[in-house]
């Protein structure tokens, strides 16, 4: 099977998954007791039953669940996520404002993780059992074990408060592309990327060390290829296969982590908005963010599958 056909087939197989994701997202919020209307009503005993029904009607909360779902889905498909209950602002507007912030943070976190982990993993595997390897393993183990909210607070405490190297407060909304943003991005980015960096280092080291024992490595050396060709061309590509598999899982972790990290750093992305929306029972916002997040994770998995097939031709044949 050619690579292109593989990609198309995988992409198509994602469609039912996305449908399932939308059902679950919708279901979760509509099956939980206490919709926003009953909450509002509870605060104000003067609301009549008729008014309550009218409110439900207006917010699409009346009628059988499947009809509510279809109405919601058809709106979502054209980019309409409804309105905030209290302010009446369009949820899509909130998404569009906040999503880039989170994407920038996530991408920076990933870039940081990859930039640290791949070289560290290679180094540790090539020097297996020596001092550098031990150091890399200890660091990786600590990285995996440290909760990111704690790491975030620690970084703020030491680097911002004590040493004054980084600003504590969030950007007073400089646009994202402004170079100054990088300074604000650094701490939350590192915080969010650390766990991923640690996991990737470990997997990179293990898979690389395993690959180095493969016969094709001895054979490549027997062909007189220089060691850097052996390591960076032959072994690296094989080891990356397991890293890509892990990366799909880690992306979900980074997305989940952004909720905590954005709150700790007051980063104006989807994660902190999510927390705020839950507080205020803004169902439409929570649903929209949940859906966007789930879709992002599904797409990350799709991307990993494609990368996987690019790296390892054997995959394309399954």
């Amino acid at each position, binding site marked *: 099977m050619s690579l292109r056909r593989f990609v198309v087939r995988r992409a198509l197989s994602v469609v039912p998954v996305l449908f399932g994701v939308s059902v679950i997202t919708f279901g979760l919020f509509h099956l939980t007791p206490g919709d926003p209307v009953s909450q509002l009503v509870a605060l104000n005993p003067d609301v009549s039953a008729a008014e309550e029904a009218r409110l439900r009607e207006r917010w699409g909360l009346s009628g059988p669940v499947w009809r509510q779902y279809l109405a919601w889905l058809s709106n979502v498909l054209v980019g309409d996520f409804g309105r905030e209950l209290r302010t009446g602002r369009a949820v899509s507007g909130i998404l569009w404002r906040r999503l880039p912030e989170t994407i920038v943070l996530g991408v920076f976190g990933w870039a940081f993780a990859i930039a640290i982990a791949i070289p560290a993993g290679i180094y540790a595997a090539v020097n297996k059992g020596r001092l550098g390897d031990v150091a890399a393993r200890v660091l990786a183990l600590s990285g995996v074990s440290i909760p990111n909210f704690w790491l975030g607070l620690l970084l703020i405490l030491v680097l911002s408060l004590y040493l004054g190297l980084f600003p504590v407060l969030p950007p007073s909304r400089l646009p994202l592309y402004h170079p100054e943003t990088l300074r604000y991005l650094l701490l939350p980015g590192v915080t969010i990327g650390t766990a991923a960096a640690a996991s990737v280092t470990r997997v990179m080291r293990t898979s690389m060390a395993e690959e180095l024992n493969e016969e*094709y490595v*001895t054979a490549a050396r027997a062909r007189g290829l220089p060691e850097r060709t052996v390591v960076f061309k032959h072994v690296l590509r094989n080891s990356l296969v397991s890293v890509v598999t892990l990366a799909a899982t880690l992306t979900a972790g980074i997305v989940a982590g952004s909720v905590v990290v954005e709150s700790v750093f007051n980063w104006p992305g989807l994660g902190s908005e999510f927390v705020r929306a839950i507080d205020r029972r803004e169902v439409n916002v929570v649903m929209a963010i949940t859906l966007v997040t789930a879709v992002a994770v599904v797409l990350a998995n799709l991307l990993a599958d494609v990368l996987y097939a690019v790296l390892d031709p054997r995959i394309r044949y399954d």
Partner: protein
Amino acid sequence: MTAVLEVEDLTVRFYTEEGVVTAVDGLSYRIEAGETFGVVGESGAGKSVAALSVLGLIDSPGRIEGGEVRFEGEDLLSMDESELRSVRGDEVGTVFQDARAALNPVYTVGEQIAETIEHHLGYPPSAARDRAIRLLDRVGIADAETRYSDYPHEFSGGMCQRAAIAMALSCDPELIVADEPTTALDVTVEARILDLLAELADEFDVAVQLVTHDLGVIAGTCDRAMVMYAGEAVETAPIEELYYDPKHPYTAGLMSAIPRVGDDDDRLPTIPGTMPDPIDPPPGCRFHPRCPFAEEACTRTDPALVDPETGEAATLDDDRAAACLEYTEGLSGGLDYSVEVAGGTGEHVEKTIDERDEGGPDE
């Protein structure tokens, strides 16, 4: 005749947790230009370790502890890595037991051959590609042009081994080290690959060191052979003499156990007993616990490799050598065996199968 490879007094040890294993102990042999030299022994005899050591491919915990490996007169063991690399793959090709495992699964077979050619011969990519395709065609891969872009998993086992041979030959080497090249293959494919190897060795005028546990393989292909036991050479002889007039009891034992190609039976020699513990080899002759002719002297004195006619220490130039006390001190009982080899030498290969395989599912 000039020697391509002279190995003298090679010793390789492995420092394992259980103890020090002397895998190769003072091994000496020579291979002449263009000849096919067999190295036979049971698994664990040290033959593969010896072959890899020659190329400096022994990884920790293994260490080459002494000796000289002269390739075209130059000592490989005193070369640094980069000098050694310019010999490996260029002047010495290697063929491994499991050809598929020896190919990187994520690059195409052709790319890997071309990579070697580009690296050693400095060919530009397109010329390297052409040369690789010609080689693939030469080793009997049908439709080589298309197959060039196949990945190893799209090749059958036999085709992988053919590609490995093409790779070994790719830079016009003087020597090919083939380590159990057909052990992983089924018998009919094995016969075809051996024929191919013999044919190409002749055509390319390249010497071959053929390492195998299978005397049947040696018989059909080699000019001379060395028998190894527990890290040492016990006998060296031209192939006919080895078969019809073995001088060492171990060789004689192997002969009586020779499996014929086409046999599906257990291929291991049926000499009673097993190879000694490599960490703590028996004193005296290492073969004595299994030797039917062992005498008291054998438990004390380690026999040297000597010319069996004269009893004088064998040199690299001797074609005939054996390591048994019979030839130095004389054993009171002498060596009393006769050898019958069914079918004679060289005829074990099923010559009826000679059509070129198209890479069917069974190869």
